[in-house]
């Protein structure tokens, strides 16, 4: 029985079809799972948060399941669930909002399970600022909004949009929030951001599944 001939590793790397860009377009190109290197769809893959470092990795479906801490029994990866939810009956008046001390009308709040505290992230010319919320303030917000008891720690955020006339509140996977941060970072001009950046932010909210 003839065995296959040994080929050089370099040739194996050069011949791997997954990296072939011939005839592929931006739409059909595939990314690779950061954990097992399997090809996966660019648009619909999931993300894992490394709780110890705060980094987000792209994950194929299999690894998403495998590394979700509930399934893996307490590893440092958390699966970021993809279910943006708009909170229509959210109760946050101007006085309460002002007490958060956030200078722009856009912020997302994340509860860290490790530190057991809530941090607010908001855009500024430097990219992203963060400030830790007073525990009592967060308790007040959750008391008036029981829906927040269903918010996942670490991987889900309360996104508050009070730009212009908007009064929107969302529960969003943190990877969507990072996408918003990237938008702001890319399009921010001068001290106020310019009109372009806010148009992009507006479009981001329009594109969220209602």
């Amino acid at each position, binding site marked *: 029985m*003839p*065995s296959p001939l040994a080929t050089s590793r*370099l040739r194996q*790397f050069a011949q791997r079809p997954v990296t072939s860009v011939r005839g592929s377009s931006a739409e059909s190109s595939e990314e690779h799972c950061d*954990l097992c290197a399997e090809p996966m769809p660019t648009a619909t893959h999931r993300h894992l948060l490394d709780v110890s470092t705060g980094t987000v990795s792209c994950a194929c479906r299999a690894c998403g399941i495998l590394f979700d801490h509930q399934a893996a029994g307490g590893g440092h990866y958390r699966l970021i669930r993809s279910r943006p939810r708009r909170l229509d009956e959210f109760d946050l008046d101007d006085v309460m909002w002002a007490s958060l001390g956030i200078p722009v009308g856009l912020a997302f709040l994340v509860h860290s399970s490790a530190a057991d505290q809530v941090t607010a992230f908001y855009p500024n010319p430097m990219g992203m600022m963060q400030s830790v919320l007073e525990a009592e303030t967060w308790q007040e917000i959750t008391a008036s909004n029981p829906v927040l008891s269903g918010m996942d720690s670490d991987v889900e955020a309360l996104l508050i949009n009070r730009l212009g006339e908007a009064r929107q509140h969302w529960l969003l996977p943190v990877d969507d929030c990072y996408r918003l941060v990237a938008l702001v970072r890319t399009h921010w001009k001068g001290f106020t951001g310019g009109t372009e950046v806010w148009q992009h932010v507006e479009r981001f909210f329009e594109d969220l599944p209602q």
Partner: protein
Amino acid sequence: MPWDNEQAREQVRRVESALSALESQPEAITGARAVEAVETLVAVYGDCLARVMQCIEESGHGEVTEALATDELVSHLLLVHDLHPVDTETRVQQALEEVRHSLGSHGGEIHLAEVADGVVRVRIEVQGCPSTVEKLRLAVEEAIAKAAPDIERVEAEEATSETAAVIPVEALFSGGRVAETG
């Protein structure tokens, strides 16, 4: 200042062992990213090499192409990227010629029967014990793997001179036609 051939061989060996080590990287994410980086880099250099070869071909300087094909390192990388100007069958023939040359004293005969669909079929005629046949078969495989990595398998048919006179078993079942020995 380019490397001499021995330095180039050493570097190629280092590449091979470094790439082997990558695949057993314990940290999955790091390993995957390293592999992806290497694949992308190799693809970029491969495409660059393809453009260089195309440029030479269009300039009509066939002698440059030939000179490149005989350079050990360039030839190796052209094979890696399926860009070698010499066709597969010719390269297989050359490889067999080298084996014949180096094993001439063993009194073996190697006949190329066919090159098709990534498979090379050779007939080895040799006087001597099975281990001599095996040695010859391995030498053939190694030479072909080096000269024609686009070949996936070598099928070797052995005909030792003692058994050459015996009617092969399959001839008994093939409607009475005795297979030619040659």
